[in-house]
Structures are given as C-alpha cells and as structure tokens.
C-alpha cells in the first residue's frame, strides 16, 4: 500500500471533483501513515508544512483544471513528487462526474481507481530536487520563413522582452527561456552557462549565456527574481534549446520579486509575434 506521503488536496467545495480530492486525501491518511496538508492554512504555516514536505514526498490532488492545490504548492515552493487531477482521471476512465456535491456510483468508482493507482508501488515517485512540478502547456502560433519555422507560444501567461526571451508566469514563479528566433539565429548551440542558483536577477539582467559556432549571447531575463531552479540538462545537452526552446530548452525558474512592475516593460504574444516577424525579415 501507499504510505508516507504528504498529501495536499485542493479540498474543493463547489464541485464534486473537489469533494473527491478531499475524500481521497482523507482515505489515504486514514489507512496509512500519511500527513495531510490544509491547502489554505499551508499559506501561513510555513514551518509546519515545510517540515512535512521535507520529510515526505508530496502528493498533490487537484479536483479540477483550476489546479488550486498545484498553485498553492508552487506559491509555497513545495517539492512535488506526484500530481493527480480528478477531472483528468475521470476523463481517462470515461466516467462522467455529477454536478452535485453528493458522491454517487461513478464518483466512488473513480475514487477506487485512483486509490488503486496510488497503491501500485511504481506509481510512487521519488521527490524531485527543488522542482515545483507545475505543468507548462504551450499553445503555439507559427511563422514560416523559407525553410525555417518559428513557433511562438500565445498563452496569455507568457510575456516577452524584445531580447527574444520569454517568461511563463504562474503565481509568484516564472519559467524563462529564449524564443525560436534566438535558436534559429544562433544555429547549433554548443554551450550553455546557467545562472547561479539563488542568484538575485534584476529585470533585464543576465541570466546565463548560450554559445553557438556563430556567436555568444547573454540571456536577458524578462523578470526580476531569485533563481530557484535551473534546467541542468542543458549543460550536457545544450542542443535541446535548438530542438525546442520552450518545453525542453527552457533556462531557469525564478521566484518573482516584483512582477507587477516588471510587467510594465514586457509585451504579450501579439506584439512580440509582429516584432519577431520583422526581425526575421530583416535577416534577409
């Protein structure tokens, strides 16, 4: 059986998926030596819950796609080992959930499926190192220039600077990287120098370097903040930036210090896409 998780359910109240998240969390705690985390109290009980999340791998159970528990974990910088979203599990198992808060046959069946899944030993993941396991989804617009394809994410959570760097902001944290324009322009990237962990980065400050056979460029951070995670894989495999500068070749994650002010100097997809197209055309 599953045991020794710290469990953070969204504990949702206005949808049955939230009720299921709560029930699963409580069942896991009742039958095993797991610790439950109150999602809202966790925001102010730093010492108590960080102690628990340091001791046990953290299991997040979100009810719906709003993913409140994930957001709260990110906000608090908890290490996440495993995540479950009830509505996704329902979809995957072709179970339609009720619109009421009362759990019926389908809801109980789904709970059993999820509990069984968690009880399977291989489903228990090891804790990650410092990574708040947030899912970043990219929704792209593309621009073709000759044989070169430029993809630019158009998610509203993604902000750009005119130095062709992006910041995907969720809560008080941002994942940053370069756009396709940079990797296409540099050609084969050979070296990646990451920023220092815990470094305090100013907006438009340097947040690492990348070098190709053509040139070396400083990465200009769109946002200010503290470096809390680095994409170490790029040190060995900088070519991932060429392969996909968004999902694979992202640079680092920063804990934001003043995003509201930073935002004034950033642009959204629409503006950046036009700027990038002009830059590409200017390369001819």
């Amino acid at each position, binding site marked *: 059986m599953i045991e020794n998780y710290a469990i953070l359910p969204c504990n949702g109240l206005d949808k049955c998926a939230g009720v299921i998240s709560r029930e699963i969390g409580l069942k896991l705690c009742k039958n095993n030596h797991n610790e439950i*985390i109150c*999602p809202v109290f966790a925001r102010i009980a730093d010492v108590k819950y960080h102690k628990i999340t340091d001791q046990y791998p953290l299991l997040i159970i979100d009810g719906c796609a709003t993913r409140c528990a994930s957001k709260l974990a990110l906000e608090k910088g908890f290490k996440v080992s495993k995540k479950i979203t009830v509505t996704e599990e329902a979809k995957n198992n072709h179970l339609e959930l009720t619109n009421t808060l009362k759990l019926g046959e389908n809801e109980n069946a789904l709970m059993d499926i999820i509990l069984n899944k968690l009880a399977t030993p291989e489903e228990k993941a090891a804790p990650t190192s410092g990574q708040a396991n947030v899912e970043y989804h990219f929704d792209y617009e593309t621009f073709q220039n000759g044989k070169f394809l430029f993809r630019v994410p158009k998610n509203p959570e993604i902000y750009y600077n005119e130095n062709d760097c992006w910041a995907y902001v969720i809560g008080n944290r941002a994942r940053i990287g370069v756009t396709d324009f940079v990797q296409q322009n540099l050609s084969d990237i050979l070296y990646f120098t990451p920023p220092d962990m815990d470094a305090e980065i100013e907006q438009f400050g340097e947040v690492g370097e990348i070098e190709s056979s053509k040139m070396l460029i400083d990465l200009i951070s769109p946002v200010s903040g503290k470096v809390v995670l680095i994409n170490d894989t790029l040190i060995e495999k900088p070519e991932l930036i060429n392969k996909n500068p968004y999902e694979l070749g992202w640079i680092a994650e920063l804990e934001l210090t003043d995003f509201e002010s930073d935002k004034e100097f950033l642009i959204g997809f629409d503006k950046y896409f036009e700027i990038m197209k002009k830059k590409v055309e200017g390369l001819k």
Partner: protein
Amino acid sequence: MNNKVKVIPCSGIGKVYGLMAREAALKTVLELCPEKAETICLARIVTGDKEVTDKIEGCDCITVDGCPQMCASKNVSIAGGRVIKEIKVLETVKEHKGKKFGSATQLEDSGEIVVSEIAGKIANIINQNN
C-alpha cells in the same frame, strides 16, 4: 452576479473542527437555505481565481472557521467580500463541553448536533438578512 449570501467555510482538513465548519456550510446551502445561499471554494479565492473573486466582491458573506487562524474570514475579506458574520466553530463547541465530536473524517452524534446548531445559526442570519 446573484444576490445569494455566500457561506464560505475554511479549508480545514485533518481536524474535526474543520470538518464541522465544512459540514455546517454545506448543510446551510444544500438543505436549509438553498434558494438564498451558496458556497464558494476557499482555495479558489486564495489563488485569485477571477471567476470566484468576482462572485464575492462586495457581496454578503458568512465565513465559518474551524480554528483560531480564521483563514476563511481573513481571506474572504482580502478578496473583497463583505463579511457580515464570522462563525467560529469553537464557540459552539464550547457549549458542548466534554462531548466527543468525531474525527477528521467522520462526525459522531455530538458532532452532527453541533453542525446542525451552527447551520441553524447561519440560516437565521441569512433569513434575517433577506
């Protein structure tokens, strides 16, 4: 936006008083005052979900807190809700000294009684408010 009073319990989980706060809120909105009251998920409020913060901004809210941290009351106020009554589960619990109320997952009879009392208090406030 509707005019229903928002009854918002804390997200208390893992302790019986949190369960009592939740059950009292649900009893109110589902059984006692379904036409006049509704509940909203506190986690969505604190994560700044616009759909729910728009719902509570400037609206009459009754918060139900299971512990002295008063997470529901504080966060609803921060989000712009007008808290017309702060319900503290422990105040009603004190009136039932020596009773066993149950666990974090299951209420005993005394726990159910306290929940009904709290829900009754909330329903009275809602009915007087309308």
